């Protein structure tokens, strides 16, 4: 698609002005990723509650998995809550989300109901995919959540295609494509980068670098471990962000969304984050030390950081935070109860939704 890219402009961009543009872009404002947004009380309480909901939901999902209510693969987002929460707060109505299989947090942040997600995890009829998708394959057209994809990296071209549609319709929306440090080594990611920059598509690529692709540490799988720089050969700017600090994520996401929305093409945000749990439920996590996990939990926990600020600033008391925790637990308990009692899909569902 070349509506904004006539032969003349293509020639200009092919020349030196492109790199000049990148340089001037970097020098004009503070580099993305260095800024920490100032949150007011309402924002702090909001992100606290939202991140807590994801964490409690995931803990409950882990528990239900242990009880046999959830089967198959189940990848928990615990530890990474600040990433989707900060980004979601920077999004506008109409912006689209798409991610891989560690997707429960993204769905809750997108506004999908805990009941609908949990019932899909247990394979019940009221699940978002009527029990036919499971943990890795859930969608909400209404919430602009485009999945939930089980093949590592496949969501990146798809998210680029969402951006293509935005550009085609010139609707001002931005697509946000999440993937992990593991997916960063898939060829289709670079095929997407090339087209996205070539066609100046409004897409923000978010690498959730949680340090391990299943059991393989990034340094064991990646020649270039700075994933923000993986777009360099396509002239795509990229920035590293403290993915454990929801305010840093928010600030970076705002700048990145603005970049993409203004017709500057794609941008990469590398979120430095960490997952506390194993890759999936059956991961003994022998590839890292307990101390490493414990250190992240005690020093960088995204939720604890907000809690400390709320208490220090006197924006909430311990009791008020406990009340938030209770209300979140109630939502999660309700979703778990619902997901255990909701019927399985009718056998007739076996043959529905294959073709229109």
């Amino acid at each position: 698609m070349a509506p904004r890219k006539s032969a003349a402009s293509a020639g200009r961009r092919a020349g030196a002005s492109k790199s000049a543009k990148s340089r001037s872009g970097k020098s004009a404002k503070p580099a993305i990723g260095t800024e920490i947004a100032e949150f007011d009380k309402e924002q702090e309480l909001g992100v606290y509650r939202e991140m807590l909901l994801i964490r409690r939901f995931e803990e409950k999902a882990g528990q239900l998995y242990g009880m046999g209510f959830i089967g198959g693969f189940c990848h928990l987002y615990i530890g990474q809550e600040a990433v989707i929460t900060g980004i979601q707060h920077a999004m506008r109505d109409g912006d689209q989300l798409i991610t891989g299989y560690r997707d429960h947090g993204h769905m809750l942040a997108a506004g999908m109901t805990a009941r609908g997600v949990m019932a899909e995890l247990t394979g019940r009829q009221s699940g978002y995919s009527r029990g036919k998708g499971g943990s890795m394959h859930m969608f909400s057209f209404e919430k602009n959540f485009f999945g939930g994809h089980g093949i590592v990296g496949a969501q990146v071209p798809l998210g680029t295609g969402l951006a293509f549609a935005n550009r085609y319709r010139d609707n001002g929306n931005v697509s946000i494509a999440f993937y992990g440090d593991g997916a960063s080594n898939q060829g289709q990611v670079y095929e997407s980068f090339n087209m996205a920059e070539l066609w100046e598509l409004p897409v923000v690529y978010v690498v959730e670098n949680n340090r391990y692709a299943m059991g393989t540490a990034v340094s064991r799988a990646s020649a270039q471990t700075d994933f923000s720089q993986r777009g360099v050969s396509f002239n795509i700017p990229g920035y590293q962000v403290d993915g454990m600090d929801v305010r840093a994520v928010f600030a970076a996401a705002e700048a990145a969304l603005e970049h993409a929305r203004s017709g500057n093409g794609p941008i990469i945000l590398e979120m430095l984050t960490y997952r506390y749990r194993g890759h999936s439920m059956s991961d003994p996590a022998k590839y890292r030390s307990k101390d490493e996990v414990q250190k992240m939990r005690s020093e960088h926990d995204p939720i604890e950081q907000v809690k400390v600020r709320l208490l220090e600033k006197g924006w909430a008391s311990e009791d008020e935070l406990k009340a938030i925790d209770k209300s979140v637990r109630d939502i999660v308990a309700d979703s778990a109860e619902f997901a255990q009692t909701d019927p399985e899909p009718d056998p007739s569902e076996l043959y529905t939704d294959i073709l229109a």
Partner: protein
Amino acid sequence: MPIDILMPALSPTMEEGTLAKWLKHEGDSVTSGDVIAEIETDKATMEVEAVDEGTIGKIVVPEGSEGVKVNAVIAVLLGDGETAADIGTETPAATPAPAPAEAPAPVAAEPAAAAPATAEVPSDPDIPAGTEMVPTTVREALRDAMAEEMRADDDVFVMGEEVAEYQGAYKVTQGLLDEFGARRVVDTPITEHGFAGVGVGAAMAGLKPIVEFMTFNFAMQAMDQIINSAAKTRYMSGGQMHAPVVFRGPNGAAARVAAQHSQCYASWYSHVPGLKVVMPYTAADAKGLLKAAIRDPNPIIFLENEILYGHTFDVPKLDDFVLPIGKARIHRAGNDVTIVSFGIGMTYAEQAAEELSGMGIEAEVIDLRTIRPMDLPTVIESVKKTGRLVTVEEGFPQSSVGTEIATRVMQQAFDYLDAPILTVAGKDVPMPYAANLEKLALPNVAEVVDAVKAVTYTA
């Protein structure tokens, strides 16, 4: 109310395990996320984390216990203000958790859901008497189909390698860039996996992409996006999301381009639920079916053929000539034998029928047109009349479209058969380059004639 801590399942297949070690003891307080125990499964040693906050009131299963069933109560957690006295003497049974192994029971116990009856596919529209028939090449017919649909719907666009400025590697998109501009006729880099995914993503967002593969040989690079992203999305999303995309391009052997560029993918794609697979022969079918494919809300594999691009057929001059996907066409009527083919296979079938007619054997030639969903009723109706069936295709012989037809006709119309079904296909070899070997690798008219003679017991 004390909370039971249950023996967790730590893998999709775990039914029991060994409680290797308790890391917390009676009286210890725990918060969610604390590791409380280690469990050995057949695969690994795993940690068990607390989900709730409280104090360990009682350890029910001591460490070292083997064969602890999933969902057995292994400890009891006390909340604020609760004491060991609150723990019931009989530990309440765990909630009605189905053990993983038992979980599928409800479905298995019931009669298997019957596959729905095949949806009624309408017949070809009547062509009004006096309609002008215009000799048209398949190439032009395909282009006209795309142009008409693009005029009618701004959501339709075409993307692929060399589709725009080059006017199409095989000139199928000739003139489209001039009429519709670069927004809607999009040259892509050579990046099949990537642009197939971009097309599917655009379709998920509501556009109606026509994704051209320069040839379907290169679509193997894109197989994951076609199968896992396009074909399965409607099902996996419970009907919420879908990908109305047409993947089209030349398929099968061309001439002297050897193994990597000469392969028929009809049977490959026909394997996959969630796809429709169309493979036209005539220009009229190419036009009417491509228009239908672009309008269809499902992902479509539209298999063309380079050699057929230049063949000329009559196409009715109508404002909106659309044909039904999923409907075979009786290309030539006859009573002695049924020959089923599709795409370029029809050239062998047609010539064979002509030769056979000279021998007094009148073949009914059916052009399948759509491979999935397959119009088996039309084939079976014909077989009821002729009692004999020969299939013809260029693809490899194992798991071919012909073997699929043979299986289903055998299952559904066994009593009508007067002879075994014979399948004529390409040979079971990669396509050779040498002209003589290439000719040997492809099916030919004589093989079709021989097959018909065999099933009609003609000397």
